[in-house]
């Protein structure tokens, strides 16, 4: 994460274990659904899961577009 950002790439970390990402010093963190299923919740129907994935990627784009001065955690839920 940090190594990629050091090279100048805007980056967002989509992860469920937010405190771990925070402790490492990641700048932009977006909370994921779960550890074995970050982008969608398998308890939902396939249709709903596809919607969840879309919403979360959309949010990731928003996070990338957000100007932050310090470490910030984002979430769709």
């Amino acid at each position, binding site marked *: 994460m940090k*190594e990629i950002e050091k090279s100048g790439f805007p980056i967002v970390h989509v992860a469920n*274990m937010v405190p771990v990402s925070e*402790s490492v010093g990641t700048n932009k963190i977006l909370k994921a659904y779960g550890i*074995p*299923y*970050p982008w969608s919740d398998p308890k939902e129907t396939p249709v709903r899961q596809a919607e969840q994935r879309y919403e979360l990627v959309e949010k990731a784009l928003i996070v990338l577009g957000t100007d932050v001065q310090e470490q910030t955690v984002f979430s769709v839920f």
Partner: protein
Amino acid sequence: MKKIIVYLNQFFGQIGGEEFASTKPMLKKEKVGVAAAIDTQIKNGEVEHTLICGDDFMNEHTEEALAQIDSLLEGIEFDMLIAGPAFFAGRYGTNCGRICKHIQERYQKTAVTSMYEENPGVELFRKEVYILRGEDAASAMQKDMPKLSRFADKILGGEKILWAQEEGYFPRGKRLQVTTGETADNRAFDMLMRKLAGKPFVTEMPIKMPDKVAVAPPVTDPAHTRFAFVTTSGIVPIGNPDKIQTGSATRFGRYAFPEEGVLKEGEWESIHGGYDHTYANADPMTHVPLDVFSKMLKEEKIGYLHPFFYSTTGNHTNESNSKRMAQEIVEYLKEDNIQAVILNSA
């Protein structure tokens, strides 16, 4: 006789493997697995209960897990909680640190644990909790467990606990006065003379330089931006052709996104040793959302998607390998004039 509770995850608590990582907390009035061994190693106390919780459950639903644990502990008398040892298991170490902190804050009882220095639990909790230095694999159980038991025994016996290096725990940032033979001016002078002569010296006060990375500029126009996707979920083509490791990864895979714009069940699998693969194998897109990227390309919401995704295992990955792999990936991204990256972990 002082009473001890031992906290273990689903695996060491003998519930089961990854499929049981979502197990809700349970309190057993017996010494399960490691708890029994710890009990034999402690003279000043006795393990009466084993508290077991699934690694995923405590991480994904922390508030709920702790509330449930509080209900289970109602009316239970105890003097100390011992958690782990957790070695390099990231979820487990984080939970061990977490439960120790909670016990200290809510019950005002001492709680101790043990884990490897790169375990994320160390950075998160070492300031508030005694975390003993452990090794990086469970094969070191016979080394780490006795150290943890001995330390706990010292506390239970009311013995004085010395500084971090002496006792073998991670420095908590607390400074206590001790008297040594030499006065500070002599010690400083000696250290300076050694440094000037190029001789090795040991600093009395290590200062950790903050490793902050400047925030990269925001992506203001995604429709005209070139994106790439990286994952540490360990998603690989079925059969794992590049033999990406299940843990302690030293390499990553570079996989072409299929023309069809989706990842199909049966063509991909997860080889990450730190979570249950059921969901990833049934639908790899819960880790690599290619369907969404494809849709967004069609909708012209994103300008471009790098045709390869980079995949490695974020399980016990050490810092130096992580840095090196990132640098290698960055070379590929630069070649393709990528402007922004989305990276997910399990």
